[in-house]
């Protein structure tokens, strides 16, 4: 199965600041430790899509998809994404991702071809082994359709 990431990636304030800036979000709980603490958080909180950030993700999607029989990563298209949180992810957490459920299925397309869908989950646990967030990705492979990812 896929290698997800080096074990134990620290979630850092600077990376949260950088990521939140890139998604144009100036919410003080992303950028200002004092504001986050005033809200009862241990430190700044990460945006919901933060676990897609490279240091945490570390090619997990590509490796997981590559491990699925008959799925060509180069012509697959990311079509949906979901994050489910057990608690807020904050700076100071140390996350380790591991593969969760994976399934693939086919659907007929309008043009009569077959489109192959893959759904896979990555479960991120904290330094105590507790689940913080589950990330679920859906990708589709449609022969002859635009290559995107």
């Amino acid at each position: 199965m896929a290698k997800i990431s080096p074990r134990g990636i620290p979630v850092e304030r600077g990376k949260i600041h950088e990521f939140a800036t890139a998604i144009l979000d100036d919410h003080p709980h992303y950028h200002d430790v004092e504001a986050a603490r005033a809200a009862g958080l241990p430190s700044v909180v990460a945006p919901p899509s933060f676990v897609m950030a490279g240091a945490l993700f570390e090619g997990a999607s590509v490796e997981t998809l590559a491990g699925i029989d008959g799925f060509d990563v180069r012509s697959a298209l990311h079509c949906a994404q979901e994050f489910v949180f057990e608690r807020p992810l904050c700076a100071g957490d140390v996350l380790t991702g591991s593969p969760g459920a994976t399934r693939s299925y086919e659907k007929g397309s309008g043009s009569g071809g077959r489109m192959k869908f893959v759904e896979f989950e990555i479960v991120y646990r904290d330094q105590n082994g507790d689940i913080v967030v589950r990330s679920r990705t859906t990708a589709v492979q449609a022969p002859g359709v635009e290559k995107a990812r």
Partner: protein
Amino acid sequence: MSVDWAAVRVGDERRFDAGEIGRFHFVRYAGASGDFNPLHYDDAAARDAGQQRVFGQGMLTAGILSGIPAAWFGPESLRRFAVRFRARLWPGDRVSCWGRVVRVYRQGDRLHADLLLSAKNQNGDVLVRGEATVREWRP
């Protein structure tokens, strides 16, 4: 900053205009996210893939859209955030985001709300459709 949960009702709406999004934003998101797929900053690579030019990462638009529940309820209140990618974001497009409460309910000892979300371009085309569940934040 924090929302008054007792006043949250089905049908409540929020929207904001994220302004014009372009190559600068694609490159900055590539760096911040680690997604260095060249389709988002290299026109030659985009043309080789059958596209007219570079286009934005779906997760960039999704991230901008997450600003609706984050600004409204606080980012710490997010229980679930889900998106589907519908259309390409081209350089120079204006992105506007919208969200509406579709359900308010109590689960355990906390109030929850389900939201529908969308990010559209200047023509009204949906770029990303989303859903979120938020819940009362208790430290």
